[in-house]
């Protein structure tokens, strides 16, 4: 039997994404957020997670998806990155799924741009594809710094 791994899944603009469960610290409802002026646009703000100040990254913006419709409250998927906890803002939380290694496939060549670096590939589930997100890449902001000024 092939190795299986567990993924925490969530939705972004109707697409199914997954991050490895062991990288996820917790999932929480939307929290009071403090905006950070002049910050890269993908940074939604700072949240107080039990005394720890955590940066919230708008994953829709990060993955260059359409902006979240007004009025839709985001959920926080708090993941552990190299630089401490980071909260990823997602639309909706899905199930925890267990997938086999051989259902994985790298992204098609036609997926281009900076998004490609953040999507490791997809797991072919029965009814749909689950995008596997690279937590470190998604939390790294080095490539968005230049766009910060332009974004505002």
């Amino acid at each position, binding site marked *: 039997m092939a190795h299986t791994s567990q993924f925490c899944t969530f939705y972004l603009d109707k697409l199914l994404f997954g991050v490895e469960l062991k990288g996820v610290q917790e999932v929480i409802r939307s929290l009071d957020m*403090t905006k950070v*002026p*002049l*910050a890269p646009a993908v*940074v939604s703000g700072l*949240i107080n997670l*039990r*005394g*720890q100040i955590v940066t919230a*990254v708008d994953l829709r913006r990060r993955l260059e998806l359409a902006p979240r419709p007004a009025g839709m409250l985001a959920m926080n998927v708090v993941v552990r990155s190299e630089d401490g906890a980071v909260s990823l803002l997602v639309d909706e939380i899905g199930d925890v799924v267990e997938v086999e290694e051989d259902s994985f496939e790298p992204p098609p060549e036609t997926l281009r741009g900076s998004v490609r670096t953040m999507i490791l590939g997809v797991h072919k589930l029965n009814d749909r594809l689950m995008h596997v997100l690279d937590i470190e890449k998604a939390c790294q902001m080095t490539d968005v710094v230049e766009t910060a000024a332009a974004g505002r």
Partner: protein
Amino acid sequence: MSDSDIVQDFLVESYENLDRLDRDLVGLEKNPHDGEALAGVFRTIHTIKGTCGFLGFNKLEKVAHVGENLLTRLRDGQLTLNPELTTALLGMVDAVRQMLKEIQATGQDGEVDYPELRANLTRLQTPAAANAGLAPPSPPAPVDPKPLPTPEAASPESAVARETPPVPAEAAPPGPVEAPAGPREKGGDSNRKPARGKIGGVLVERGQVQTSDLAQALEKQEHGDRRRLGEILVASGSAKPEDVTAAAQLLESKLHDVAPETIRVGVDVLDKLMTLVGELVLARNQLLQISNTVEDASLQAVSQRMNLIATELQEGVMKTRMQPIGNIWSQFPRTVRDVALGCGKEVGIEMEGKETELDKTIIEAIKDPLTHLVRNSVDHGIELPDDRVKAGKARAGRLILRAFHEGGQVNIEITDDGAGLNVERLRKKALERAVITAEQAARMTEREIFNLIFLPGFSTAEKVTNVSGRGVGMDVVKTNVEKIGGTVDVQSTLGRGTTVRVKIPLTLAIIPALVVTCGGDRYAIPQVSLLELVRLEADEVAKGIELVHGAPVHRLRGRLLPLVYLNQELNLAADTRSAAENDGSVNIVVLQADERQFGLVVDHINDTEEIVVKPLRKQLKTVKTFAGSSIMGDGKVALILDVLGLAQRASVVTETRDRALVEKATASGAAAHDEEKQTFLLFAGPGDSRMAIPLSTLARLEEFPVAQVEMSGSQWVTQYRGQILPLIRLEVVLEERRHKLRALQAPPTAGSGPIQVLVLAHEGRSFGLVVDRILDIVEDKADVKTAATRASVLYSVVIGDRVTELIDIPAILRGADLNAKQPGLARAAEVAN
């Protein structure tokens, strides 16, 4: 434990050992016959050598080995430590340190195996080479490998010293001495604990063993008796077994005393604790708030107790992050020695207040600036030995480091007894470099001129050495110290020496800050950058804010203060214009950034608070306007403004400090006359006349609604802080009596605006002076005076280029008949108290 863990432990331990080696070697150089210290040095090198042999770092082992050989000779008295030997040994320490770094980075001990260093160390092992040249005359070293008995061999001390025979030595296993002779550890390990060999000394000291018996026993040991000293003594009947046991136990306990009761804790663990305590404090605050609204005695009792515990816990956790400043000072003897040797000077270093504690982050931040200041003092401050003798000083210079707590801050002073700073030379230099103008130079005080050395590119060294004199040091020192909220100041007496004083906050983790609101969000401004707050009322805004080709400025005491709008700088939404929220009034926070002042316009000024600083994550490190974040009392996050970053963004401060320099020089030029200056409160008196009182006489500024003004006879009074405050109206006292109108004695017209009152204290009594309008606070020499033209006016002076009447307070009190006629009022006040 994995291999890498072992290597990691080895590295941590070795780094600490090397730091101690630096210290011990420099100490030994001064006192080469300190056998204990020498043994310590030997042991350290031996341990490093042993461990790296075990871990397979052969190159490192080779270097340590030649060092150990040399040390063996020193320990055995065949060589005497001299500067050349010390330099060679310190070179070895550096090489070892270099290789440790290599191991840390790559896991290998590197390619270099230091053949020259090893050759040098080997060469120095021969006494002739080691003691040649610069060494002070030392007795010819014996070639006999066995240590010679010194004349005082009979004394317990030297007997003790001989208890550690070089080879063959026996590793004495710890434990009670009379332990049955079982399988015994053997081997050439001369790495003995210092205290263990001293059992003979203890026994002699207690009178339980005769010195001669001890000497005999030692001799036996030297001649190959492998038993331990205690056993020999007991066997020969010179000592009672129980005495030996007791002595061994005493030594054992002393040994434990030597090892401090500490454990190693990762910094991340402490940081986590700090975070949790911060959160606990927050929860406590909320609990306290709730318990105050609920009428429940037991809840209140519990929350009070929790309050105390949380406060104590917070202090305790803060303490774990505190480190004595001695930790960074410990490397200075070595630094001083190297620099002094490099420039042919003799310098002794003294330290006071080593135990003064500072937060870990601060300790790290001031390490480099302090090192630079120390090097600088040796290189620039202290003169060459011959020059010192000519000046009537001791050949060796003194460098004194002092640290002490004062007013919630830590002061660190670096004092040398060198040549001092030459004011005239500094002045000349500053003029040459066109840092200041001739006029400024003439006006500047000594202290201001001393502080010129902190300007970039300003070096006083006649010649540039590789240590200092390149003019890049002192300004970096200043910048780095200021970055952590500290200040640097220099004082000097020509020919007597220089003192550099660094003042730094105790901790960076918790700082006082002013909390402001802008665009609906709160921002914290560190108090260290804050100068003052100015509020312009709606009707003053048009006059108070002027434009210089579109750039807004405010005249603050006659000088133009550039204004920076926080909402514009932060690109906050334009609909939260401050004007709309504050009925048109403007709040200006006057800030200092890198010698420049600017006014930050914010929507609302909340309060000052002690905030816990949390650094920003990597994702936000690029945003230079913020220094960190903090959690406020309500659990929300607020950003901490980086005043310097903000100033740079707003172009208040540019890379070139030219303007600041000029400004500073002008400002300090003006400040030179501080002694003659006074600060006045300007106000508008009756008939829009311009009047002033010295600010020192003012207790408070108050505003009373007309409804609160009551009449006591014809006197206006009001109730103020439980007292009756007489209100003196200038128009009443200033008018000639014959002109006094009845209307003036009437109560104030209801419905008119609130009255402005200066609360003054005179001869222990308070009274209020009703004025039309408060104008400003100014600093002026006020030296152009003319005699007063009317009563109650001291004289007319020119303040801020306009004629102003200076009020004569005692005269006013007389005019208002308060002094003489109102004992009743005074009594009433007493009763009210």
